[in-house]
């Protein structure tokens, strides 16, 4: 087999492996960013009010966080190796340009790991205040990690800050690369998503418990706190998401065209809700069209010209149907979560309490998986929407992929490993959830003492 044939064969496998491991890591990483916020709020409330329920929640959550952090740390390590193992030409050529955010992320992660150690093992060694403060760097460095890593991805979407001569980077401005055009909107979009996913997932777990009859103050508060975090960020995400789409219109018009199923270039481009693009006929069928909506959303004027897929050679098109459907899923889910946020806020304002009904609890249960769905769909839009490029307009994914054999075996081994990892994490989290609610146990201890 010659090198090109190996590359062709490897491409699908390497992309599948990357998609799978990133798709796994992104959920755990988001929880790693968002969960500590909930933990610290609960612990802060425990210190402020002296209420043992908050304390119990914080302590319980810190165990779940420990498991999730370990899984996130190892799956993140896999990714940092994978970049080089699967895409050696990409990292060999551009490692210097995007290495700065990775290095800085290394520091942020370092700081996080240090304070995670102090926080998790310091419950009985530090004063309550000192312990709470040990959690603050976890929140901040989680935020910073997410920001740094996403700047590297933003650079792949909007590459700047380097000179390429004969396939070699001869000069580079790593700061400009890091602060590329796509960075502000994309990093904000990701971080807000991390908070939403964490909030809604936690709320979802406890709403489930409540539906099964565990309806005490512990479960109510846990759900309310998670839901509050999700609900605060849901409306913000709509604004940030809109900014993201406007940025894509500027930096990656072909991705925008695929997202919207817009084949024809022209003014008054409609906004499509739903629909299935057909690359052969160049039509997006079954969509509800709002005339001029896309032109208005992307450029602020309903008469603005939107470049459709027809202004780009078909060899530069991403898989249109997949990108469009993923985008629709993300937006649809985001709107649904926003609706839930409005429902919760309205009830909280009118009745001074969250609704108790079965319908509301079912909606909250659904919100967790939906938030994850939106997250994954958004990631598909970003990554698949950039194909066939690994670095938009500069390097094709085929050029980047490794020539090493055995990538199929590697992928199989990875699938097996991650299945074990995922199953293990779920088992342990369930085990933690089955423990009796801590206050009861502590009470027993104090009676005994």
């Amino acid at each position, binding site marked *: 087999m010659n090198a090109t044939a190996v590359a062709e064969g490897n491409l699908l496998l390497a992309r599948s492996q990357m998609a799978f491991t990133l798709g796994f890591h992104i959920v755990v990483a988001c929880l790693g960013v968002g969960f500590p916020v909930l933990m610290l709020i609960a612990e802060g409330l425990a*210190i402020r009010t*002296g*209420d043992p329920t908050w*304390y*119990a929640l914080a302590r319980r959550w810190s165990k779940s966080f*420990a*498991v999730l952090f*370990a*899984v996130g740390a*190892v799956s993140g390590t*896999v990714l940092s*190796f994978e*970049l*080089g*193992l699967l895409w*050696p030409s990409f*990292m*060999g050529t*551009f*490692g*210097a340009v995007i*290495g*700065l955010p990775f290095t*800085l992320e*290394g*520091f942020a*992660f*370092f*700081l996080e*790991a*240090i304070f*995670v*150690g*102090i926080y*998790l*093992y*310091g419950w*009985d*060694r*530090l*004063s309550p205040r000192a*312990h709470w403060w040990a959690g603050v*760097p976890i929140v901040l460095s989680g935020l910073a990690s997410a920001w740094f890593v996403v700047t590297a991805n933003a650079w792949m979407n909007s590459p700047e800050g380097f000179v390429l001569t004969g396939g070699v*980077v001869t*000069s*580079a401005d*790593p700061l400009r690369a890091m602060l590329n055009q796509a960075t502000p909107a994309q990093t904000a979009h990701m971080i807000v998503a991390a908070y939403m996913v964490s909030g809604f997932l936690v709320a979802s777990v406890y709403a489930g418990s409540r539906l099964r009859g565990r309806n005490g103050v512990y479960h109510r508060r846990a759900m309310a706190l998670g839901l509050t975090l999700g609900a605060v960020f849901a409306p913000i995400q709509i604004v940030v998401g809109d900014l993201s789409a406007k940025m894509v219109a500027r930096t990656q018009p072909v991705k925008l065209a695929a997202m919207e199923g817009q084949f024809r270039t022209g003014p008054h481009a409609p906004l499509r809700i739903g629909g299935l693009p057909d690359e052969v006929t160049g039509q997006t069928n079954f969509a509800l069209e709002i005339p001029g909506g896309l032109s208005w959303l992307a450029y602020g004027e309903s008469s603005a010209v939107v470049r459709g897929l027809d202004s780009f050679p078909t060899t530069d098109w991403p898989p249109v149907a997949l990108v469009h459907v993923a985008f629709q899923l993300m937006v649809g889910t985001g709107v649904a979560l926003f609706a839930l946020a409005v429902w919760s806020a309205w009830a909280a304002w009118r009745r001074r309490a969250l609704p108790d009904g079965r319908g509301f609890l079912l909606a909250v249960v659904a919100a967790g998986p939906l938030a994850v769905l939106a997250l994954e769909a958004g990631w598909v839009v970003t990554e698949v929407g950039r194909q066939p490029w690994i670095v938009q307009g500069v390097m094709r994914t085929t050029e980047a992929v490794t*020539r090493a*054999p055995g990538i199929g075996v*590697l992928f199989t*081994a990875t699938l097996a*490993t991650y299945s074990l*990892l995922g199953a293990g994490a779920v088992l*342990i989290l369930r*085990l933690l959830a089955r423990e009796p609610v801590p*206050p009861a146990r*502590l009470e027993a*201890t*104090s*009676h005994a003492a």
Partner: protein
Amino acid sequence: MPPETAVLALLVVALTLYAVLGGADFGAGVWEVNTALQAPERERTLLYRAIGPVWEANHVWLIFALVVLQTAFPRASAAVMQALWLPLFLGLLGIVFRGAGFAFRSYAAGAVLQQQIWGVVFALGSTAAPFFLGAAAGAVASGRLAITSDGHFAGSFLTGWISPLSIFAAFFAVGGCAYLAAVYLTREAAQAGDQELAHLWRVRSLATGAWMGVLAFAGVAIVASDAPALWAGFRERGLPFVAVSFVTGCGSLFGLWRGGFGLAVTAAAATVGSVILGLAASQYPVLVPPGLTLDFAKAPDRVLLAVLCAVGGGVVVLVPALFLLFRTFKRRPRQPPGALGTLAVSCLAPGPKSRGRCR
């Protein structure tokens, strides 16, 4: 000093710290394998308690070294990643299972079977990781990787990394981790006041230390016969490091013998550290032998300077944080524990007070 040399020095320091700190965490798992997971619960508790708070932070040195390598010497990194994908991938599996196994085991309280399973996973992962990472390091050092001076790998993707030195390095790395762990655990046990365990680990570390000393000489012989280029550099620049390693190695054994465990820990770390520093010095200025030099592989100067600035800034934040971590957990607690725990328990105590503020 040109920026690329400074960054290379950073890289070597990071790898050394990874070996000295992270290596001991792996070593704890290696001992679990060595005792066929039959260690009594008390022994295991010490082991888990010792690495619990620090292993995540110790692990980051590897990530740090990796990102610096990718950033500052991208073409060397790409070549090595292609040539060594198999041992690196296997080492990575070890890292994944070690970390997951440890965390899962720690939080599977009550579920005996699950704890046992994750204990096995942790032990095997902890052994596989240094084995394959050691093999990868040995493969680079051997100079037998078919990497051309323009950074292309032309060898076998499956077996290109196997050589006498890489096999030796794999076992040597596992042994080194076990040695570090045994010495550190001797001190931990002594600090915890458990004389019996301290004695056990002391005997283990003396035996492993003596055995590793013999192996180290064998290693020098293998380098002489299997890696001529490294051997030449070694004779030129490696000898001081060998001397340091020998002296500190003897020092750690002496410390163990005489019960000076603080000395033993420092000296053992220095022994392992100087092996890595000696390897790097012998190889300099070749980055990936035989022919990939620092000059060729380095990123543009601006990138190197950015990395140096980032590291400078990072160190300012990191050093106090690391200090705090090790001070909190690697010293005997001075204050009675349970500050926040006490708060909760007292709040829950029956009586009229339990509703109010509890401070």
